[in-house]
């Protein structure tokens, strides 16, 4: 469903992604690990269509379509979702209004009618439960004054509302306490089905105990430098990245 070929991307003239390749099939979970600053969040942003990154080469094929020319909102409506590493606070925009606009934008895109107010609220309630997000939180402005963990839960709540076919979870586990990690991971697992896929970016094995990946990749210096199965994550946890870096630089 997703195929990234030789992707190169710059920010402010500095190349961050340097010929990246990745292939994901329906129903698969891919974990991406890698040292700080290697380009993981950049890859997420480029997939989601953030314009401050300039794509200089390559392609991103999603459901057989090159999406590089699509806007961020078009990609979202095509079924791509990014759970941000650092969800931004938007004072004055209520989560309810925000989600209503998002859900109905997607329905419009798919030539469906807008949800009625009561159906929408029902949907909100149902998805809130999934990540155990309280109503008092949902009635507030987007992420405003949320704790780090609440922000991450809110990302997964939004994902549940929008039911994407490809979700990129950028360090969704960071900032979560042990219980919250379990809640979020359970939420993700409940949403998993044979048709949707996940890219899970993380630094730690503990998330992968809950969301078990089919493949694990190491992103280093703007490229996927190593891929393997879930055992690779355990090996990284044990040995760190030095051996990978050595392998890469000796090539």
């Amino acid at each position, binding site marked *: 469903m997703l195929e990234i070929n030789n992707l190169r991307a710059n920010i402010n003239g500095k190349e961050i992604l340097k010929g990246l390749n990745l292939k994901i099939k329906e129903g698969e979970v891919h974990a991406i690990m890698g040292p700080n600053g290697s380009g993981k969040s950049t890859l997420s942003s480029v997939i989601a269509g953030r314009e401050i990154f300039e794509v200089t080469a390559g392609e991103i094929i999603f459901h057989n379509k090159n999406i590089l020319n699509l806007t961020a*909102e078009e990609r979202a409506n095509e079924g791509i979702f990014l759970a941000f590493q650092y969800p931004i606070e938007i004072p004055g925009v209520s989560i309810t209004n925000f989600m209503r606009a998002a859900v109905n934008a997607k329905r419009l895109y798919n030539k469906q009618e807008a949800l009625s107010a009561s159906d929408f609220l029902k949907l909100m309630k149902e998805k809130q439960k999934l990540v155990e997000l309280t109503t008092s939180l949902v009635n507030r402005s987007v992420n405003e004054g949320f704790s780090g963990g609440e922000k991450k839960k809110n990302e997964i709540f939004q994902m549940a509302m929008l039911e994407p076919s490809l979700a990129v979870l950028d360090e969704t586990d960071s900032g979560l306490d042990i219980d919250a990690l379990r809640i979020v991971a359970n939420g993700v697992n409940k949403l998993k089905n044979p048709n949707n896929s996940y890219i899970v970016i993380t630094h730690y094995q503990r998330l992968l105990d809950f969301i078990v990946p089919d493949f694990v990749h190491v992103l280093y210096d703007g490229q996927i430098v190593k891929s393997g199965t879930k055992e690779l994550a355990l090996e990284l946890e044990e040995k760190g990245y030095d051996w990978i870096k050595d392998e890469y630089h000796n090539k």
Partner: protein
Amino acid sequence: MNVENFIGSVKVTDNAAFIENTEKRKALHESLKLKSFPKVKDEEWRFTKVDSIFDKAYMIPSIDKDFTIEKYINAKDYAGVVCYKNGFVIKIEVTDLNFIIEPLSKIDNSFDNIFKTQEQVFVELNNYFAVGGVNIVAKKNAIISKPLLILYIIDKDNVISSPRNVINIEGGANVSIEEKILCNSKIESLTNALSYINIEPNATLNYYKIQTGSDICNLFDTTYIKQQADCNLNIFTLSLKGRFLRNNLRIKLDGNGANANMYGLYIPKQNEHVDNLTYIEHAMPNCDSNELYKGVLNDSSSAVFSGKIMVCKDAQKTKAFQNNKNIVLTNTAKINTKPHLEIYADDVKCSHGATVGQLDEEALFYLRSRGIAKDDAKQLLINSFIDEVVNNISYEPIKDYVKESISQKI
């Protein structure tokens, strides 16, 4: 053009209509002769040129009472209505008898010289040309939930109108006043309005200025307010439309424990220009003032904010806050903002600040990444920015009207 030539150029249809008598007008004329229109070298007019406005020929028509209020408003929403048409008071209707409203029969000078200002020429021009004015009293301890409406209608070409409101809110009263200017869109006009407001001890006044002018209207609006002990003021200056809008709002906290909240909003587009001058004087101890003005500028519009807080020597335990925030949507829009604080007392809490920025790119991406179209995402962010002002409007029908007008424009 100098002031004398300007006065000479105004065509007057009915000389008997003026509020002020001939003698007094002669004296005003003598005084005005010595004055000039503000220049950009005047501190309070640095970013607003007025010359071209006074180069035109204006006229004062004869009174035209033809008026169907239903065309403009739903009278049931109000406790009373004062309607000016082209500067003449053509209707005074009071449904709540706790408001007493009478036509002004002569100019009230009780506020003269309360502030030393650079807009004295506009005050005198208003006195000189006024053909309509009202005296409004809200009776002692009256609590009135519906607002009183003061409506300015301009529908004749090249009219200069000089409405004048003298308002007294008696002790303990709690009332609201909405002032609205409506201009026929095809008409060039100049409105030079003047309001004097006195708020007695323990009274509360909510005052809404809703400026919905036209693409070719010019408005100078001068409001002087005196607040006595323990009274409250919430004043909104909502500049929604108008080619040229200049607001002079001056408040004197003249009694112990008085409280003023000043809110402003301007959303100019195309070539509109909005200039807000605010001045708040803490003359007595234990007073609070809180000021929030916000602007969203589009196209080649321009805006000015100059706000001054003056804390006098005796005004101990003053709390005074001022904030001006702006979003500039284009490269061609321009904002000049100048917050200003002058403190002569030592036991005070004051702060002021101003920001000018663009729409937050990160927030915009966040919204778009959820499928919300760029324009809708912008709209959401702009609304949330504006809501910080609009949500302070406590009277729902006015809040709804303002929100509706804003969403139509943006």
